[in-house]
């Protein structure tokens, strides 16, 4: 771990308290996350989908309408994707911004199809990560997401991956799985996994690929 050890030591009481509340039962954890959601909503965390994000001053394609992710969630993924995808993202700044923006749009589109039950679970997780108090105490990420470095994002992911607390492992899987699937599953990045796509001879022969 490469986060600040002195800060971590002073926060250990918080961390232990939260750890206990998580350890009780899965249900306890769920209720706790529910509380965070309510608190985050009251304290001004944006809880409505971002809709069409203006292209001016952002990296998003304004033609895409967000149906689930909020502007806070978008910032969360802008901070996490460089750590989750790592060297898979292009280095050239404009291409990199586009790759991150497109992946976040596909994450949003995917979550839309998850339906209400899993959307509710993800809302709790994202609120927990976006709400300052829980971001610091539970995720132990000290800066707000736009200021988090890739190293810090990676350290956070590693903490949740290696944690002995199942709920954190579950959070790690949720964040990385939706990101990995939205990134590696997209045609533009198939080459990173050496996947040539559907066989061309079949595409050429099948009626559903012919222009109507």
């Amino acid at each position, binding site marked *: 771990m490469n986060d600040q050890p002195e800060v971590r030591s002073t926060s250990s009481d918080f961390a232990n308290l939260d750890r206990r509340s998580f350890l009780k039962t*899965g249900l306890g954890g769920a209720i706790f996350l529910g509380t965070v959601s309510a608190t985050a909503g009251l304290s001004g965390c944006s809880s409505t989908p971002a809709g069409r994000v203006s292209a001016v001053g952002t990296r998003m394609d304004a033609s895409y309408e967000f149906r689930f992710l909020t502007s806070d969630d978008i910032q969360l993924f802008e901070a996490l994707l460089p*750590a*989750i*995808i*790592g*060297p*898979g993202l292009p280095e050239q700044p404009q291409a990199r911004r586009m790759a991150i923006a497109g992946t976040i749009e*596909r994450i949003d*589109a*995917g*979550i*839309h*199809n*998850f*339906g*209400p*039950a*899993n959307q509710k*679970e993800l809302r709790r997780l994202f609120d927990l990560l976006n709400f300052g108090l829980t971001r610091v105490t539970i995720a132990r990420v000290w800066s707000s997401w736009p200021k988090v470095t890739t190293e810090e994002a*990676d350290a956070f*992911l590693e903490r949740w*991956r*290696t944690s002995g607390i*199942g709920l954190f*492992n*579950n959070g*790690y*899987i*949720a964040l*990385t*799985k939706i*990101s*990995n*699937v*939205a*990134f*590696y*599953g*997209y*045609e533009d*990045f*198939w080459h*990173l*996994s*050496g*996947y040539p796509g*559907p*066989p061309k001879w*079949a*595409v050429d022969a*099948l*009626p*559903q*690929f012919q222009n109507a």
Partner: protein
Amino acid sequence: MQLKDRIAQGLESGWKVTDGATLTENRTLEADVVVIGTGAGGGTTAEILAKSGLSVILVEEGRLYYQKDFKMDELSAYASLYQEGMSRVTKDGAIAILQGRCVGGSTTVNWTSSFRTPDATLNYWAERFGLDALAPDAMAPWFDGREQRHNMEPWAVKPNVNNDILRQGCDQLGYTWQVIPRNVKGCWNLGYCGVGCPTNAKQGALLTTVPGALDNDAHLIHGLRADKLVMNQDRIDHLQASAMAADGITPSGVTVTLKARHFVAAASAIGTPGLLLRSGIPDPHNRIGKRSFIHPVNACVAEMPEKVEPFYGAPQSIYSDHFNFSGGVDGPVGYKLEVPPLHPAMSSGVIPGHGDTQINTMARLPWMNSVIALLRDGFHPDSPGGTIGLRDDGSPYLDYPVTDYLWDGLRRAFYTMAEIQFAAGAKRVRLMHLDSDWYTSWTDAKAAIDQLPMELHRVRLFTAHQMGGCGMGANPEESVVNGFGEHHHVSNLSVHDASIFPTSIGANPQLSVYALSARNSTRLANRLKA
């Protein structure tokens, strides 16, 4: 070449097919029988009843997708063809649930493996649940019939490299293996069964029994969610259903009331118990939703010296039952060994990781093999299965505790899979476990498996086979339906899907569902016409 599209032709010829999203006002429809679900069970039921001259309405929550929509693309297919956009998990999030949600149900997206119910399973059912009428000899004609209906035959083509690695490893170690029967006709051996067969080769419900029912005047309403079976005294009077908007996710507000003499629930082992629980169907012994089984799956991946291209070719063609019944039918849990196809989205979601580690792993995909173990749950007191419950919004969930009995089997399966992969020449092997590295020798892998914690979330677990929850049995105190799928307490309700299995099957369940549904529907048709 199977370029002639059965669905497009049928729609053109005037099949009665209604897209729920096009309904603008509430309506009431009536038929002899309402069948809820269009998968292996519902499709079979609808075809047999409709052919017998009964009027049938088929209800499907998912939408109608067919060849024009099947473009060999993972992201769009997972979003539209699978339950909860492929994000369905058990209550605690520890087990990923792969399940179809479209016309044809899971048979539209399965990997075509077509096994008879093992004799050992049928004999166990006879002995333990009083289901003597389902003994292997009695079931044989039904398996024969369905094998013909769905064109099931052992795969005659050479297995792809991914599957051949399982064969080679088993050969090296003296473990038995066999060729998998597949339900295909004129298969192009492409490898995209899981995202909707692009060539109309797969003979699932979508291209066999559902068209068979529609040819015989059945009415299919898709994009329609079955909310509640409404009782009038001791019989079901009607089904209350909600039309879904064109996105397939949001109810449009339009409701449909379906009246019938008889109702068949075939909405899957999660959907059917959910529907019965929502409906308050009489359940004096509290059996609905209990003993829910999933063939818990764990997995290993291997990097092979030669290219595997695990994304191409018939996804499943070789299996091993060496460890499935070796400990006796009700001894330590047995497991079936198979191979999954590996496309980029699926692989990157199944292999846990991020950053450098993940991209380095993904970069080796063309050289990657994977083996999966499917545990035969439900045959032992320490494997009582899970429970289907309802969320606040009425949607069903599966709560599936993993017992020590199952963890023991999962650990043994890790040993077996890694050993087989090394025996087949793997350069390195990684377990689907949060703590697993790549291991470059069987000795190292073995030492690691000795130590790895067998814990929820850390061990990556999956299920593609949902069974039980409305178990059949002779004794109404411990079952929901009798051996013909007839509800013990409600005379005009039958269950014709995998939810009636009193244990798991010990093999991919589609043929078990087809065969039992055919048998029980034939009886039901005679009963209703008498």
